[in-house]
Structures are given as C-alpha cells and as structure tokens.
C-alpha cells in the first residue's frame, strides 16, 4: 500500500500488532470462571441458553406426544402440568432472554467498535446469576417441579393450591434471571452511550444495536414491576402475607396486572432483537445498504413504547369494564402500525435486490413469512369481544408461537448462522443447514397452524387429555407429527454447529461481506477486539472501508 496508509488518517485504518503470552492449562481453567471478556461471557450465555433450548424443546415434544391421541395415558396429569410449566419457563427465561443477552454481549461491543463493555464484571455476574436461576429451576426435578404454568396465576400458585417448594423455586428462577437481565441491560445501555467508535453518532448506530437498546430499556422499566410481584408471591407463600389471597383481602387479579405489565412487553423484548437481526441479515444477503434501517429503528422504538401500554389485552376475560377493554384494544391495535412499517420495509429491502440464499438468509426470510401470519392472527386477539372466544385456547398458543417462538426459532437461528463464523472462525455446512431449515420451516407450520383450528373448535390450552368425541384427534396428531419434524430439524442444526466448530471451513474476518464493524476484526476476534478502531462515517462502515480499499488499491 501507499505511504499514506501509515498515517492512518485518510480513512484507511492503521494496522498495529500485539503479542499475547499463551496461558497455561491451569490459567485457562481459572479464567473460564473469572473471565470478564464480553465475548467469552457471550459464548457462555449462548451455549447455556442453547442447551436449555434443547431441554425446553424436549419437554414440548413430550407434551405433544401426550396430546397426539385422545384419552392418552402416556403422561400423568401432574407431570403434564409440570412439563408445560417447565417448557414455558425454560423457553422464556432460560432460552429466549439469555440468548438475546448472549448475542448482545458478544456482538454489541463489536458493532459499536468498543474494546470491552462498560461494566465487564457486571456482565460476568449476569451470566452466573442466570446459571444459578437455571439450576434453581431444574433442581426441582429432585422433588416436585412447579405446575402452575409459566404465568403462575394465584391462587393456583399459592401455598394452599401449590404446596410444593417447586413454586418457590420458580420464583427464585424469576428473580435470579430477572436480575441477570436487568444488570445486562444496564451494561448494554452504558456501553452504547459511552464506548462507541469515533464518528459513530446515534444515527450511525446499527439497527441490531438499537433493538438491543430497546430491549434493555423495556427490561429496566417493566421487569422490576414483575419482580416485585414475584417477591409478593414469595411472601404470600412463606410469610403469611395476603397480597393475592382473596380470603384475606388480597386480589388474584393484582398478580395478573403486575405480571402482564412485564409479561406482555416481554414478548416484544424477545421479538425486537429478532427484528434487528432479520433486518441486518436481509440487507446483507439482498446486497443492499441499510436504506430502510432508520424506518425500522423508528418503528422498533415505537413498538417498545407502545408495548408498555398493552398488558390489559391479556386480561379481557376477567370481567373488567368494557371501556378499559376498549382502551387496551386500541393500544394493542396501535402496535400493528409500526409492525406494518417494519414488514413493508423488509419487503422493499428484498425488492430489486440480489438475493443470496445462504442459511442466515433462509431463516430470516422464514421469519418474515411466518411472522406476517402471526401478526395478522394477533389482530383477532386484540379485538376484545373476539378474544372472549379465543382467549386461553390453542388459538392463543398458536399465535404466541407464530410471533414470539418464530422470533426465537427463526430469528435467533438466523443470528446464530449469521454470526457463527465470527464466534468460531469457521463456516457451517450450508447443505446441512438447508436441510435443517426446511425441516424446521415445515415442522413449525405443521405443528402450529392446526392449533389455530383446534382453538376455534373449542380446545383450551394446557389440557392434558381430551375425549374421542371432541373431534380434536386428527389435528392434534398432525400437530404432534409436526413437532417431531421441527425437533429433528433443530437437532440437525445443533449437530451442524458442533461439527463445524472443529471441521468447518475457515471463515476469515468477513465471509458475508457484512455492513457493520464486527466484520472488520478477525474471526474469532482477539481479546481486545480491534487492533485499531476505524473512524465511522456512515451507518454501514464496512461498505466505506471496502470502498476506500478499492479506491486506494486501484490508485484512483
């Protein structure tokens, strides 16, 4: 290169080198527990959360096997209730949230051009709190797991109707993982405010980073409310208070208000990062710059704000005033407006693109196609008189999975396939990834589409058996077959990740010609992330750097 590159101020980054002394085996072991490197913490989160994903998925398949035929006696009623409680709790608090936190830990500082997070030790503490929460929940396998559902409505979750300590452990899990999410959120916000690369104004922050900020903001506002409610339930169960006990002046509906104030935004908290991931993946694999990114960022922030006003939409059947129901209907319907803007932005991104159907793209496009269906069927649940028919049925289960679980499965698998080369330095097998995708896509739709029909036909969610006269047998069996296909697909994806970790082709720093700064550094990145942090001139700095390199190497 020319002599000017040594000055490092013509747009080309300056290259410096560093030496790192190799660690002894003992040092490596100790550092596995004491590390404050955001990338290692991120990998711990991602690996542990994926493990819980497999566990929660296995629980779901067991549930589906029980429901495959009428009057089945494969699983006893108490085990069935424990299984769906563990499934919901695991997926929400031990997979979805920690997977988002793990990806954010790993990717956010790299995207921002930071060499670490603002509070590395808090980042590490968050992982160990999350792990403690997971151990607290799964320790109940040794005695009696909780069985009041992931929403734990009192009085069912009270000491009288759920005397086992399993319910207490559910509360410990909620508080521990909640604290983990809260600490992580503070870390993400502080990192974004203080540690962005030179030149990265707020308008140049990538969309995934924005969605993490939206997630973190929502967590800080909404989670403490539900953590307070969980503490009140703990007091009710163990110390004789009666916050939720109607026989002593308490109110069971108070729990629903407090829980859903967090629980309803929690669905969006899981979805917003998926929106960010899908946006970045669609842009990169359609060969587009992020011309639509600002519109999507605006919409994401709008959804985050509106979601705080929608909790009453989960309580339409509790006999409240229809004026209040009408207000919550309108706030919930308003979320539809920015959601439409996001979906249309994705479509315009694909329109007139040059699409490369690599595995991250397939998952992202799969998410869009499934999410459209979930959004539209969500309209029915927002219209409260219609919700009176649909609430608490398999229709709600289906719609929840078409939105939140779609974000978890398709959105987060898009992320894992997209950033896998960055994490591991290697590429996954594309042919295996495509087989996995089509199994997952077909299995997902077969599993959940028929559940809409079951709900319309009167099947409540969470029942452990149904009679032969109900007419639900055929669709239930279809759903069970679908869940097996879905599981096989996910196992193939998991095997692909594990195999490619040692056997995959070397990826290099930027296998996808990405737009954002994480692709500037080697894969996997060194401990200090960047030898040199480039100055950012736009929302897609890698495009500028590639253009600069092309310009200087052609001498123009």
């Amino acid at each position, binding site marked *: 290169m020319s002599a000017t590159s040594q000055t490092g101020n013509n747009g080309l980054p300056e290259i410096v080198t560093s030496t790192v002394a190799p660690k002894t085996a003992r040092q490596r072991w100790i550092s596995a527990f004491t590390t404050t490197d955001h990338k290692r913490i991120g990998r711990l989160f991602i690996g542990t959360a994926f493990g819980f994903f497999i566990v929660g998925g296995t629980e779901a398949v067991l549930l589906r096997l029980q429901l495959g035929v009428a009057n089945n006696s494969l699983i006893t009623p108490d085990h069935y209730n424990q299984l769906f409680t563990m499934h919901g709790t695991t997926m929400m608090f031990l997979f979805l949230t920690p997977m988002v936190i793990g990806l954010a830990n790993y990717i956010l500082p790299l995207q921002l051009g930071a060499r670490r997070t603002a509070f590395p030790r808090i980042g590490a503490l968050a992982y160990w709190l999350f792990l403690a929460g997971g151990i607290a929940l799964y320790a109940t396998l040794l005695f009696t797991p909780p069985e009041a559902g992931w929403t734990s409505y009192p009085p*069912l979750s009270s000491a009288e109707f759920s005397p086992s300590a399993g319910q207490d452990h559910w509360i410990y899990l909620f508080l521990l993982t909640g604290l983990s999410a809260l600490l992580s959120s503070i870390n993400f916000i502080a990192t974004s405010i203080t540690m962005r690369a030179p030149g990265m104004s707020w308008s140049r922050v990538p969309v995934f980073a924005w969605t993490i900020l939206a997630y973190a903001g929502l967590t800080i506002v909404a989670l403490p409310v539900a953590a307070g409610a969980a503490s009140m339930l703990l007091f009710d169960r163990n110390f004789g208070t009666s916050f939720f006990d109607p*026989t002593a002046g308490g109110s069971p509906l108070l729990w629903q208000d407090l829980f859903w104030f967090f629980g309803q935004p929690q669905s969006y908290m899981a979805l917003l990062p998926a929106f960010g991931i899908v946006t970045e993946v669609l842009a990169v694999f359609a060969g587009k710059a992020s011309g639509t990114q*600002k519109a999507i960022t605006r919409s994401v922030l709008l959804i985050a704000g509106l979601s705080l006003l929608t909790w009453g939409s989960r309580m339409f059947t509790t006999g409240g005033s229809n004026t209040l129901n009408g207000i919550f209907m309108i706030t919930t319907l308003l979320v*539809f407006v920015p959601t439409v803007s996001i*979906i249309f932005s994705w479509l315009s991104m694909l329109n007139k693109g040059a699409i*490369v159907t690599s595995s991250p793209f397939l998952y992202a496009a799969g998410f869009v196609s499934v999410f459209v269906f979930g959004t539209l069927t969500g309209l029915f649940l927002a219209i409260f*008189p219609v919700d009176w*028919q649909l609430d608490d049925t398999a229709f709600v289960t289906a719609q929840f999975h078409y939105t939140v679980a779609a974000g978890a499965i398709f959105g987060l698998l898009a992320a894992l396939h997209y950033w896998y080369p960055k994490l591991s330095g290697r590429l996954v097998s594309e042919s295996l990834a495509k087989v996995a995708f089509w199994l997952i896509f077909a299995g997902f739709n077969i599993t959940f589409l028929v559940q809409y*029909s079951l709900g319309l036909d009167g099947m409540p969610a969470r029942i*452990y058996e149904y009679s032969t006269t109900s007419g639900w047998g055929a669709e239930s069996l279809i759903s069970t077959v679908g869940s097996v296909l879905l599981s096989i697909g996910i196992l193939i994806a998991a095997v692909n990740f594990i195999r490619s970790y040692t056997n995959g082709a070397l990826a290099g720093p930027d296998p996808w010609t990405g737009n954002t700064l994480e692709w500037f550094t080697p894969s996997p990145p060194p401990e200090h992330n960047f030898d040199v942090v480039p100055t950012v001139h736009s929302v897609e700095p890698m495009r500028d750097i590639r253009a600069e390199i092309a310009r200087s190497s052609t001498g123009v």
Partner: protein
Amino acid sequence: MTVLLALLVAPSGASAITAVPRSGGSSNADSIAELYKIILAISVVIFLAVEGFLIRALLKYRASNGAVAQETSVTPRSEIGWAIGATVLVAVLAALTFIKLPSIADTPAGKTITVNVTGRQYIWRFTYGNTLTSPFTYTQMVVPSDTVVVLKIQSTDVIHSWWIPALGGKTDAIPGNTTSTWFKAPTPKSPEGDLYNGQSAQLGGRQFANMLASVRVLTPAAYAVWLAKQTAELKAANKQSFDTRKKLTQDGQIPNLSPAP
C-alpha cells in the same frame, strides 16, 4: 409457505380445519362470529398480498440469476403512507368492534332468569335461585329457551373460566369477584332439548382438562316442569335429611347443631 397457502385457500368443507369460532346458540356468539369473519376477510387479503410480494421477490431477485441489487430506501413519504394506511385499518376494526359491542355485551331486554355459576376444582355448580333451598345441579345446566339467561359467576378456590363456545365468549370465575355474562338460546328441535358443550378454559390444577360443562336448553314449559320436579325432589330430600337428623339427635347419637330447613 405453500402449506400456509394451501390450508388457507382450501375450502373448509374439504378438510377438518375450523376457520371460524362456534356460534348458533346465542345472538352474542353469532355477533362475535360475524366480527371475526370481517377481520378474517381483511386478514386474508393482506396475507395473500404480502406473502405474494415476498415469494415473488424471493424467486425473482436472485444473485444466481444475475440480479444486480438496486438501492432502495424507505422515504418519509412511504413511511407516512404505510402509517396512515395501517392506522385507518385499525381504526376501522376498532369502530366495527364498538358498533358490534352492544349486541355482544349488553343483556337484552325481555324474559330473564338468573343462574348462579360456581367453579371449583374440578366441577361447575349451577344454582337456580338465591336461597339455601334453591335447586342446583352439577356439570349440566338446564335452562329455558327463548329466555335471557344471566349468569353470575364465582369461584370458591382458584381461577376458572366459564366457556360454552356456541353460547358466546369466556368469563373468568375469580375467587372474591362476581363476574357476569348472558346467553339466549333458540327453541330446541327435540323434546329432550338441545345440548351445548364446553369446558373450563383457564388452568385450574391437575384435573382441569376434565372440568367439563354443558347447557341443556328445554322449552320454557319443559323447563318449568323440570324445575318444579327438582324443587320438589330437593324439598323431599331436605325433609328426609331433617327427619333423620332429628331422630339421631333425639337418640343422642349426634349433637343438635342445625336449625330446621
């Protein structure tokens, strides 16, 4: 996507797929189904348009077919346009809901009876009146046709949810609260009456799957006969119980605790 489209477009008669909530037992259920169908029609149009556009883009603009990416950006004009379009749509949906709401939520005028519904793990109890000697049944409610039946719903333990799909939406049974709903069933076709089935929709514990409920609708005349028979039988049973207790008390086998019914 093909699966989605095929299932959505397939005529509902050709498969076991249910696309509309049940109705036919009461005008509020019918109104909900009408509102549902309007949303369904709008959703199907949007779904087909969006998925169609998506599939077209996915098939047409492939790099492997030599497509070259043309930069697109969302202009403020199109962003505002989408926002206006979506807002108009949700405003229409909200307006339709409020137009339909009185026919769903408001108890109609006319001949009315009240049935007290009490949920508990894992059975429904129906009390036809407000006194200790009022007749009652478990699991199956018996009501007259062409009469507004107002339900006062309570729970004695955990939260349950009252739901007979063909008679309208759910109403939760919440301990400490009394919630309310209504239905008005048409004249039955047979003398045994029409039967409408449902079950509790809210998780209430281990045997919640078997917390079944049904409503038998009789003609008002048949209902009057049924109610008189229930009242008489209950009275006879109470008398028998009282006589037995009186005898046992006189014999000194149990202490005298209760007053006469």
